[in-house]
């Protein structure tokens, strides 16, 4: 959205093609954002305002069935048959969340009280009360880090970056809503890489008494009353640990979205070793693809935080504009 806003403001003819019924992607599903605890919907409003003020042409409910390059012109075909021609394409197809059913031993989809972080966020967004499926208020809640990330056994060796700080954020939010509950985060590492993340972590421990246990879950089982039995090796204490939690939240990782794979294959884009799209150079050309005229913005290239997506989006706008104007500086980029 941001790239389209800026490009339109720079007087380019931009069409924003969105396959869902409204713009915003995953951001529409997040209630509060780390580390500021500001509302996701405020960011969405900011983006919407941009689209409105710049008067960007938007096509919603538009599924792309084909995308090709002939010479210097790109042709994009929609499912209803309409074709769009352009001189450049910016791919912002984003990510999907890891399907936690693949991690069968954690019980998602089998035991009732195992949910994903996205589902928890949806509960926050709707303003529902936090309750187990048996209707009682949970006394003990567990968060499992690295579900579908850093895991050879499901084919995703990389770190999804944002889930650790999301776990910290959500554990604070749960404590705000259910102050009497005990929250336990089961982690392998705590990746608090961004500014103010470490402070958030400290706040979780200090103000909200969130417990952090270093150990990776091997299995979860269900007890007769629906609570979840968790078996973990407490690596810091050096002993195995078992505990019963009323609710288990799985921090699912980010995977390349189905749309990313589809568009990438249609246009002949390079994919990186982890399945995301591959940019020309990871330091200086993060928004540039292997095909002249095709640019990337956002999480189709790798997991990103929202502030970085904004930076990326504006960079993509700039690179696209530079390409379209064929500035001298374009000669710096060698394919």
């Amino acid at each position, binding site marked *: 959205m941001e790239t389209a806003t800026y490009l339109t403001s720079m007087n380019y003819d931009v069409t924003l093609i969105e396959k869902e019924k409204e713009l915003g992607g995953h951001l529409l599903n997040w209630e509060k954002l780390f580390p500021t605890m500001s509302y996701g919907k405020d960011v969405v409003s900011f983006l919407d305002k941009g689209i409105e003020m710049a008067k960007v042409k938007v096509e919603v409910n538009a599924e792309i069935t084909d995308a090709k390059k002939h010479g210097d012109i790109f042709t994009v075909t929609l499912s209803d048959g309409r074709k769009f021609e352009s001189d450049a394409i910016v791919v912002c197809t984003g990510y999907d969340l890891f399907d936690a059913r*693949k991690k*069968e*031993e954690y*019980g998602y989809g*089998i035991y009732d009280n195992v949910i994903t972080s996205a589902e928890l966020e949806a509960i926050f967004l709707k303003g529902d009360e936090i309750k187990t499926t048996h209707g009682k208020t949970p006394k003990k809640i567990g968060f499992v880090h690295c579900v579908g990330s850093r895991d*050879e*056994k*499901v*084919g995703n060796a990389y770190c999804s970056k944002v889930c650790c700080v999301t776990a910290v954020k959500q554990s604070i939010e749960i404590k705000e809503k259910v102050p009497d509950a005990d929250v336990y985060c089961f982690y392998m590492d705590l990746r608090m890489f961004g500014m103010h993340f470490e402070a958030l972590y400290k706040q979780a421990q200090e103000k909200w008494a969130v417990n952090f246990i270093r150990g990776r879950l*091997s*299995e979860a*089982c269900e007890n007769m009353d629906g609570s979840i039995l968790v078996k973990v090796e407490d690596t810091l204490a050096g002993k195995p640990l078992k505990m019963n939690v009323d609710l288990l939240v799985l921090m699912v990782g980010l995977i390349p979205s189905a749309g990313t794979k589809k568009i990438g294959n249609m246009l002949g884009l390079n994919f990186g070793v982890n399945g995301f799209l591959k940019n020309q150079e990871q330091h200086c050309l993060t928004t540039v693809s292997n095909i002249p005229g095709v640019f990337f913005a956002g999480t189709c290239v790798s997991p990103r935080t929202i502030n970085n997506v904004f930076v990326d989006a504006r960079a993509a706008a700039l690179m696209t504009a530079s390409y379209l104007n064929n500035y001298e500086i374009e000669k710096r980029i060698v394919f």
Partner: protein
Amino acid sequence: MNYDPFVLPFTIGSIVLFAILLYYYLTWISRISYKERGKIWKGIFSKKLFISIKEVFQESLFHRKIFRVNPVLGYMHTSLAFGWFLLIIAGTVESKMNSTKAFNMPYEPIFFKFFQIDRTVSAFPNTFNFIMDFLLLIILTGVMLAVIKRFYSKLFGMKRTTKLKPGDKFALYSLWLIFPLRFFAESFTSGVYNNGGFLTGTAGTFFAGFLPVESLSYIAWWAYSSALGIFFISLPFSRYMHIPTEVVLIFIRNFGIKTKKNNDGFAEIEVHACPRCGICIDKCQLSMSAITNTIQPSYFLQSVRHNNTDENKTFNCLLCGRCMEYCPVGIDINAQRMIQREKMLLGKKVSFDYLEIIPETKKADVIYFAGCMTHLTPKIKLAMVSIFRKAKVDYMFMDEDGSICCGRPLMMNGNDQAAQELIRKNIQIIKASKAKLLVTSCPICFKIFTEEYKLDIEVMHHTQYILKLAEEKKINLKNNNKTVVFHDPCELGRGSGVYEQPRKILEMISTLQLVKDEKNASLCCGGSLGNTELDYYKRDEITKDALAELENGNPDVLVTACPLCKKTFNKFSRSEVMDIAELVDISMEK
């Protein structure tokens, strides 16, 4: 008496060969246990003798199994083996009919054409000439194919063939030379005396036109005899030891002797019966997917024979059994690997005294053992519990809180004593439950329960059990409108011979798609616990290749019957992977 010095290489070679073979076979048979040797004695005087003779004809001469792999390959082996066999028989008959004496020298049939040069006094000269020349022609085509195969094995359907060591190559070349030299010897002699048939006679006349055939023929006979002599002497030390040893193996095997866990005489016979034909190389998935070409049975058994096997050759094997399916000699390769693993493994002492405490065992009719792996795929055990409940079975979940391993992983890696400890423990629990039937959902456990546990109650894999419940109408199955494909787990299919029961169940509830390599030819998922050497990149390749074949028809569900297969396939599969118990559970009338 017909004699000429040139017969010496052949004669000496034969005597030496006979002596060596006698020595080896007597030694090996003496190293078979006393009880088992009794079986040999009984077998000789039984119907099994004729069964063995029939098998010798079918496999050692006619090479039926090789024909199934590739017809041209089969013809090549048959033309040489059967052709040579018939040549010997026909030659002996020919020589007997033309002899005035009761006792002939053994070399007479071989060198018949040298000694009997006047065809006017021969018995049925035209008939015999035709037969002998025809057989020689067949063999020569076989030799030609064999030479071509060394360079273009792809023409024979073999991507890879055995890379031979110098000793084998030496024996190979002498073998190749035998029949061409016979051809030249007989042709040159025919050129002088005109005693040849349609092949040797014509060739002889042709050669006589421009070559000094008289002197050349004598040289050729020397060469022919020497080639035979050299081949015979190198036979026991090369891959061609398989020629006599395979015959011995077939007889002894049919009399009821099997490969056991120790390296006894029978195991030695098996090792020496490997012809290094190389068929196992292409069929091995480590070659197909993981580009590992040094560990296949051709090479492994060779290294065992020469006492220089290494860790990689011994342990880098999935124990999937595909090689055994295609081996023309029928060697029990998995058992041989486990014998070597037993020999090579260090640090076997274990202390399982922490298992001495047996928890209170509930009594029930049926005892269900989920297996270690099933705890990592909990949907399977939940489905089984649901099926037990719906069928109102009085069951007891043996390892609900965690399993004592069945012992097969230890056994597969060469630690039999440790496995026996675990077996002892588990048998105590099973006996204490007073159950009449043991059901398990893991094929690895199933195999060891049936083979090693010596239980006097019935043991079933859950596919067999579910079929039984369905046939006894204890559960009602209905169609779930899905297209499915079934993967035969190595330990259930080739390992235990259970192929039909899962298919019968699936045909009742879904549309079953066929797969290219199925039943006893099915591909291993790659997750096998039998291999400790393979790194996970190579395992992934094996998994992906197996999936490519299984998902070829775009099924809705890939049905497995093994928790390890399910977990392995889940990593890369496009379609949903379900255990058969899960599929049955959702296809039941409530």
